[in-house]
């Protein structure tokens, strides 16, 4: 690992004065400081230790900052790959206590169901413009649909996305999204759908945002969940809205455990969904022995082992994406040839990102436009 030229310059005359440190911060903020493929993280404050806490599989998950002797300045320089997007926190040690904080010198953050992380991006990564609201984009709307679930013995609430210029007289493709509220909140799914439809990159479609009850149980290949989606959600949505009645116009998607829920639902009901969109699926399996991912994965591993034994043909086309900084990259990569061998059309995309909602957000365009090509090529208006 090479050092940072900016830090070397700061330290060239020995211990910098507080004013020099302050000037250094002001000159280079916001942090991390990016020099080519190197990123330098900086923290100021009295502590017993400062560590970079990230979720990059393959790197030590916690790397210590160096303190500049005689100052309250801490820094860490790391080599990163271009076009990367990395979520992280700073772990600050005070004696035996450690607190995790977002980087105070970095305004860039990403929210998730657990709070928010700081974000470091490297040269070549740019947040796609279609993830931002656009002034000229016609907006779709969301409405609620209540579905009573026999499978779970309770009422379930769906949010239904209707595209701009929705008409009852027309029929639309249907996309069912697991973890719907999280996709809407953290992956700005509505903004993305509005933009991609407006840009004609995907056709106008209806999207059912579904939410779990006991997520880790239901999404872990629980047969009740498959029944709920296919025998309860799908008929309810089709009864209420004009949906194209053919598998090629139906897609089910999800991320992480939501990917498992999507695959297992399609596997249990082959021929229902023509398309699957699987993001960072938690497709853990064992060839021999046991897995080490915790009890929540037990039913997932059982399912994946069974699936790998008899995959059948859960869909005609599957778009898969995964971050290369996730431990799940290996399971996802290994699934691709298996699916292809079944005659399924598979597109697999890797991104230099982790297991997070913004990674999944950034893959929407490529995935949806591959599964549902829009009329872009022939519509000029």
């Amino acid at each position, binding site marked *: 690992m090479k050092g940072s030229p900016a830090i070397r310059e700061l330290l060239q005359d020995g211990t910098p004065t507080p004013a020099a440190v302050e000037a250094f911060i002001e000159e280079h903020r916001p942090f991390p400081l990016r020099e080519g493929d190197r990123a330098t993280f900086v923290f100021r404050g009295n502590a017993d230790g400062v560590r970079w806490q990230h979720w990059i599989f393959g790197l030590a998950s916690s790397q210590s900052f160096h303190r500049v002797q005689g100052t309250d300045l801490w820094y860490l320089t790391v080599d990163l790959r271009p076009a990367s997007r990395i979520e992280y926190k700073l772990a600050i040690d005070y004696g035996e206590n450690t607190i995790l904080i977002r980087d105070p010198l970095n305004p860039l953050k990403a929210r998730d169901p657990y709070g928010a992380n700081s974000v470091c991006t490297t040269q070549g990564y740019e947040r796609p413009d279609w993830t931002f609201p656009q002034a000229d984009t016609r907006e779709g709307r969301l409405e609620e649909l209540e579905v009573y679930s026999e499978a779970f013995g309770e009422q379930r609430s769906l949010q239904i996305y209707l595209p701009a210029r929705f008409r009852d007289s027309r029929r639309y493709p249907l996309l069912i999204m697991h973890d719907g509220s999280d996709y809407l909140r953290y992956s700005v799914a509505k903004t993305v759908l509005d933009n991609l439809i407006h840009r004609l990159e995907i056709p106008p479609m209806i999207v059912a945002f579904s939410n779990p009850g006991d997520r880790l149980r239901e999404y872990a290949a629980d047969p009740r969940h498959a029944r709920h989606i296919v025998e309860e959600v799908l008929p309810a949505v089709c009864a209420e809205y004009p949906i194209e009645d053919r598998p090629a116009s139906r897609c089910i998607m999800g991320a992480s455990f939501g990917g498992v829920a999507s695959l297992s639902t399609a596997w249990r009901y082959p021929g229902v969904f023509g398309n699957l969109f699987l993001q960072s699926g938690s497709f853990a399996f064992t060839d021999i022995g046991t897995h080490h991912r915790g009890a929540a994965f037990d039913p997932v591993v059982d399912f994946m082992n069974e699936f790998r034994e008899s995959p059948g043909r859960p869909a005609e086309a599957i778009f898969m994406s995964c971050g290369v900084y996730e431990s799940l990259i290996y399971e996802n990569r290994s699934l691709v040839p298996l699916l292809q061998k079944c005659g399924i059309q598979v597109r697999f995309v890797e991104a230099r990102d982790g297991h997070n909602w913004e990674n999944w957000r950034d893959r929407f365009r490529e995935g949806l436009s591959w599964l549902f090509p829009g009329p*872009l090529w*022939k519509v*000029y208006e």
Partner: protein
Amino acid sequence: MLDDQDLDGPLAVVTGGWEEREDEVDDLRDHCQRETLNLGLYKRMEDVLLKDRALSQALVDRNDRLRVAQTFYRRRLGPLLDSVRRLHHLKVSRMELLPAERAHAILSVAELDAHYMTQIRGIHAAFDELWNPTERPAVVDARGEIAELVKQSSALLIAGGHVGVLLDQLTLFELGTLVGETPVVAWSAGAMVLTERILLFHDSPPQGPGDPEVYDDGLGLAPQVVALPHARTRLKLDDRARVQILSGRFAPASCVALDEGCGVHWNGQAWSAIGPARRLTPQGKLAGLVAP
């Protein structure tokens, strides 16, 4: 534009490219501030196809043949265009030898375009001969009503939308003939169908290389130009090689970038620019419109 034409009487409008939104013409009517007569071509075509099931089925078959021909064309077009682009980015020690290679490579693409057009014209001709679609009773009835509306109008407006759907409607109901001497104002896909040759294009699609492809013959009312509506958003106009290739491929026709606030006017003999209309040059740049 309309004010300059000294028009008297209502405007016939074609919004069939909007498909099922065909009737949503309030904004257009407000914009024109004149009485409008919607020709309702989308609805009329749907009605014809409902009444004449044999024709409907024959069209499905024809479209299937067109799709297959398009698949062959695309398979050949991709590698050809790729080689042309490579030649345009090639740096060699004897650069003076390159222009001839580039020109010949572009010619190969133009030849493929011509071959494809021959193929699809053959498919259309076979269909027309077998089915004589313009003489089917349901079509004749609809065309009579349309002709009456056009006759009452001082001009015909053709909006954009789905260029294939629009072309099918205009062809089936023979708008190119019905319009006679009536002035025509068309934009977006509407402008494309007026030309002799329709080009589909987008340099940055979410999937695929974005190879501009010939689609079909247009009505031919606007000669010697290739219409490129929304060029600023759909084309990489600062990519010199792409502009150069597009321009060379369709020469001697002019590729005209049609963006908001500009257009071109054909008076029957020559073209003139409306606003800052620009054409793509063989040098890979944009220049003011010159009559082709």
